[in-house]
């Protein structure tokens, strides 16, 4: 997918189909700035996933339902395909469906690590062309270690955008360090 454009302030950026970029957003902007970027990207192509730092889960759904929600909304997959994706995603996270009892918990019942695993699994299930990572989305004990290993293999052809007030970028296979 080529020609992704993004307007930040007065500047228009054209981003390549793959690679990793840090977007230095207005620190005052907060959630609205992230929303602005997401809206622009969604309007151009729905093939997009969002990886937040914390939260990002709907409280009245289990972790599994949270993971499957965007998948079932955006893609029309058969139950067998969904199960296969779950197995693959979970195996990358060092688990499997038969051992994934933690996925049946509600976000409030789950540990912080399980919530982060669910957020990562949600992105992996979508296999998106573009991923927007909120500030802190790759931090934390689990994500920091697991995603460094998973990202190159799973989403090597994807465009990764790290949106935050600073450009501190974890050890990812970034082709360029920063757009702005």
């Amino acid at each position, binding site marked *: 997918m080529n020609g992704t454009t993004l307007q930040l302030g007065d500047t228009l950026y054209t981003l390549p189909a793959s690679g990793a970029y840090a977007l230095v957003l207005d620190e005052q902007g907060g959630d609205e700035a992230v*929303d602005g970027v997401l809206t622009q990207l969604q309007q151009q192509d729905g093939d*997009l996933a969002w990886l937040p730092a914390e939260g990002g*889960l*709907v409280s*009245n759904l289990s972790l599994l339902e949270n993971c499957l929600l965007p998948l079932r*909304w955006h893609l029309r997959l058969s139950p067998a395909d969904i199960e296969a994706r779950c197995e693959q995603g979970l195996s990358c996270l060092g688990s499997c469906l038969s051992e994934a009892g933690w996925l049946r918990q509600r976000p409030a019942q789950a540990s912080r690590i399980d919530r982060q695993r669910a957020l990562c699994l949600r992105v992996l299930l979508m296999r998106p062309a573009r991923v927007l990572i909120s500030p802190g989305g790759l931090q934390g004990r689990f994500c920091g270690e697991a995603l460094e290993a998973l990202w190159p293999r799973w989403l090597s052809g994807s465009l990764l955008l790290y949106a935050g007030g600073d450009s501190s970028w974890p050890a990812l296979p970034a082709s360029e360090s920063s757009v702005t």
Partner: protein
Amino acid sequence: MADRLFGVIRWRRLWRPPMTSVLLRQLYFTGVESLVLIIAIAIAVGGIIVNQIHYQYGQAGSETLRLLSLLTLNELSPLLTALILIARSSSAMASELAAMQVHGEIRILRRLGLSVRDYLLLPRVLGMVLASFFLSLYFSAATLLAAALAVGGFNGPHELALLGDSLPWRAVGQGVLKSLLFGLAIALMACRAGMRGGVAMTDIPKAASQSVINSLVAVFAVDLVVLLL
């Protein structure tokens, strides 16, 4: 014909699997879980009205049943069902949406690329409309059966069956229309109050009470409009 066909196709595209889950949950909480309460109240209403008309004023059994069926199918059943739904489900629906708003979950859904209208509101509105219709139906059946048993004992169901020929079908149609419109009004008021919720925890009970008051006003206004038509 083509428009109809394309309408169906569009509807199929619009309807996505997660919406079915929300619709089924809404039907369960609003419809199935209210059923015992609705039937209990319906039986009590049937018994009370029969007691008033038949035993207090000495009206004949068949005439009592005819009056009660007219009153129930046209007015009592949709209205009392709506009042129970307002007390039970409208406030719950508004609170849930307001809590989602307060906890930033509506924003999360938007960030995931989901349409809040399609995922959260449409199945809730549809669920409430369907629940209102079916609960109203059960209410009528329970009221009339209870009344028939109270008037005619074991012969009651037979007298009830005889009513079929003398039922004013326009009134029945009005009752069905009312039950659908009441469900729609309650759901719209609850969604409106819930989605208008602010960012403070105190906005959640405010949304619930606002939803109850607005739903009550809307239901009586709709009732009046249908009556005047």
